[in-house]
């Protein structure tokens, strides 16, 4: 019973953690503007958290530079399952104008699963909100699947 209550409340508060993997700061500013009063994603429960251990949705921006790659992987490893990865802007998916550079090691798919992507350089806040909504729907599915797997596992053992 408590589990259901917790799940229901988590549905309404998907917390975001933002990783800047060498982004030019354009996407980062747009992501912050999503949380400002004008677009106010906090009314849907999206909240920027300071620690990857509390995150449900990880937003990655930037073309994965060599300097940020290991830190990004280390941060992603700390996010509790299940979580969604949103790639923000054109950079994480393809490298954008830095494609083929010696200093980047992308795309993001190489290092983690990417659930939702937003194109644009930079994406408009409305598009980011749409992507976050999509990510939270996917997150819900994932959580459901995980609970079912847990249940099946428990029944098998008992």
């Amino acid at each position, binding site marked *: 019973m408590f589990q259901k209550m917790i799940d229901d409340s988590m549905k309404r508060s998907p917390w975001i953690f933002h990783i800047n993997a060498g982004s030019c700061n354009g996407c980062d500013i747009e992501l912050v503007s999503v949380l400002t*009063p*004008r*677009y*106010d994603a906090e*009314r*849907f429960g999206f909240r920027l958290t300071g620690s990857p251990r509390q995150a449900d949705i990880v937003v990655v921006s930037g073309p994965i530079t060599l300097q940020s790659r290991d830190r990004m992987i280390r941060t992603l490893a700390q996010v509790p399952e299940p979580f969604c990865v949103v*790639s923000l802007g*054109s950079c994480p*998916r*393809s*490298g*954008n*104008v830095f*494609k083929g550079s010696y200093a980047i090691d992308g795309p993001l798919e190489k290092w983690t699963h990417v*659930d*939702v*992507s*937003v*194109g*644009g*350089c930079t*994406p*408009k806040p*409305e*598009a980011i*909100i*749409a*992507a976050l*909504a*999509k990510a939270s729907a*996917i997150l819900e599915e994932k959580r459901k699947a995980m609970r079912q797997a847990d249940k099946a596992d428990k029944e098998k053992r008992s």
Partner: protein
Amino acid sequence: MLPYVGRALSNLFRKPATERFPKTDAPEPAKNYRGRLSYDPTKCINCGQCIRVCAPQAMTRTIEDVDSETQKITFTFDMTSCTYCGLCADFCSQHTITMSNDYMIVGTKPEDFMVTGSFLKKKPVAPKFTPEQIAAMKAAAAKKKAEADAAKAAKAGE
């Protein structure tokens, strides 16, 4: 004191500054906004100028032979690779590429971000010469080369 009270009272009845976005349709972007590309294959002449000017190499062109005289040319624009600079639209002499104002570039699969178009084009006709003409051209070229060599030798001998 009084102006503040007036402002406070008027704010009570003003509509909120927050955009209503997910409840309403996505608002129109600013004039001349550069969003998702649109490509009209009926106008394209396959000059390749767009491929030359694109910094992130967002487009791929595949040319297949349909039969001995026609080719099928397919352009694919990857919207997660594009940096939305608009150069391809500016350089396209046929106005094939235009930047639409659709900024909802959100998806979960790579196919969601592809803009494709293909068209058929007649192959250029191979030049036809008689064997005598070819022999004459070869002789002319050989003569020119010999003259140049002689001039060079004379210059070196000075």
